[in-house]
């Protein structure tokens, strides 16, 4: 499966998500953590979704996660050259992200729930670098 990165809908950051996209631009997957209750959370917001504290800080994720669930879409999409998996990835830090899976066959036999994954960053434009995931140990 190949992705035509010129056809991927490009995210538009808001003031609350700017740090995330600034992070991927420099090779970091940034999450947020509550200083009061230690919850690590995603997607970005300037307060803790567990205790509502505004005392939060930005933390860098390890980039390691595992495959929580997925579907394999069979219908054509301009950014993909064939059937492709839309995946949910559980990060080590306890948050979940949607993504696609690179450097692996897009089949039920290849995509095994709970398989270890690692983040890989792909530029969509000069300003936006999008996180994807691939099997851990891949060299992309």
């Amino acid at each position: 499966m190949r992705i035509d990165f010129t056809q991927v809908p490009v995210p538009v950051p808001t003031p609350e998500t700017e740090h995330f996209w600034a992070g991927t631009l420099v090779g970091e997957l940034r999450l947020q953590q509550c200083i009061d209750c230690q919850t690590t959370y995603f997607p970005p917001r300037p307060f803790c979704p567990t205790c509502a504290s505004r005392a939060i800080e930005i933390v860098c994720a390890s980039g390691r996660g595992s495959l929580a669930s997925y579907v394999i879409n069979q219908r054509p999409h301009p950014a993909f050259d064939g059937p492709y998996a839309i995946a949910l990835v559980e990060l080590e830090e306890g948050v979940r992200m949607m993504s696609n899976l690179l450097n692996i066959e897009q089949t039920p036999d290849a995509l095994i729930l709970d398989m270890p994954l690692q983040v890989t960053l792909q530029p969509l434009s000069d300003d936006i670098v999008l996180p994807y995931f691939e099997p851990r140990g891949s060299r992309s």
Partner: protein
Amino acid sequence: MSRGEVAIVGAAETTELGRIPHMSQIQLHADAALNALADAGLGISDIDGVATAGESPTGVAHYLGITPNWVDGTAVGGCSFMLHVRHAVAAIESGLCRCVLITHGESGRSNVGRGGRVSAASSLQGQFESPYGGMGPTTIFTLPVLRFLKETGTTLAEMASVAVSQRQWAGKNPRATLKTPITVDEVLNDRMIAYPFTRSQCCLVTDGGGALILVAADRAEDFPHKPVYILGTGESTETPMISQMADLTTSKAFKVSGARAFSEAGIDHGAVDHLMIYDAFAHLPLYGLEDLGFCGRGEAGAFIAEGNTLPGGRLPMNTNGGGLSYMHSGMYGMYALQESVRQVRGTAAAQVDAVDVSVCHGVGGMFAASGTVIMGSSATR
């Protein structure tokens, strides 16, 4: 909420269902509303409260010539109409209005006069979900299911039996879109849409509408049909982002909404004669049966596969054929409510014997919201 203090006295769908290219979306609202008024023996001037989703209540009220005392435009997806029922009960009980009209109309197939629904690129979905190739509900609503199957031990064949069971009900319903019986093998070998969902495990895409009329119970006997009393209701929301469900194998909104409705109605599951669980996709009845407490964890798949929800089974479910076989315009909740009303009235195409309690459970968005309505006959009021 007081139990049984408000009743549904008018209920109808659009004259036609399926492919209706000669009607705009707002006219589908009006066609259903006029049919519901005729069903209740009421005129338009009797309506003083309007609730709707998909169109604005202002637009629907004006189109129908109503100047309301009360409006509700709660729009949380396909279960919005369950929430409208709940809010209408509160409004009528507290005297804000006397007679509420709830309308739904959707040109889901023909797209005549229907607005768009795309997330902005700056919304959280636009930033953190849309780049990954989701193409609407078939690829997003379906995302949690492999986790559900793994955690609960439910099989793909058991999930396929949802579509098989509902097709059996649809076969008894002349208005159903798909009536030909199917087998589990046929469901599993049907065209793949988004693995593991084949075409027959995804909802239909059709046009249609429906409307309900509610009044206080003390005058509900004065109408042409058997009143259908509202015994209990519930509502909740979880997240607009499927990736952020707290647990991919259970819906928080289902649990909160369902438990609230049961506690208001003061009944236990054994009292339920008939059940509707909004089925945009085949996994939803599995989540619904478990999250509403009809089945234990991991038991819903076998429960359906063993035939318990079929005609003659001990818990008849989705008796109009459901979103998989009856119709699905996009916001299916109204059709589930209509079928519960017909079952309690005793007028359904595939009528279940003596329905005194019907539970009607809806989902909004993609596990984003939920609404539950428990209806009863005069025997259970």
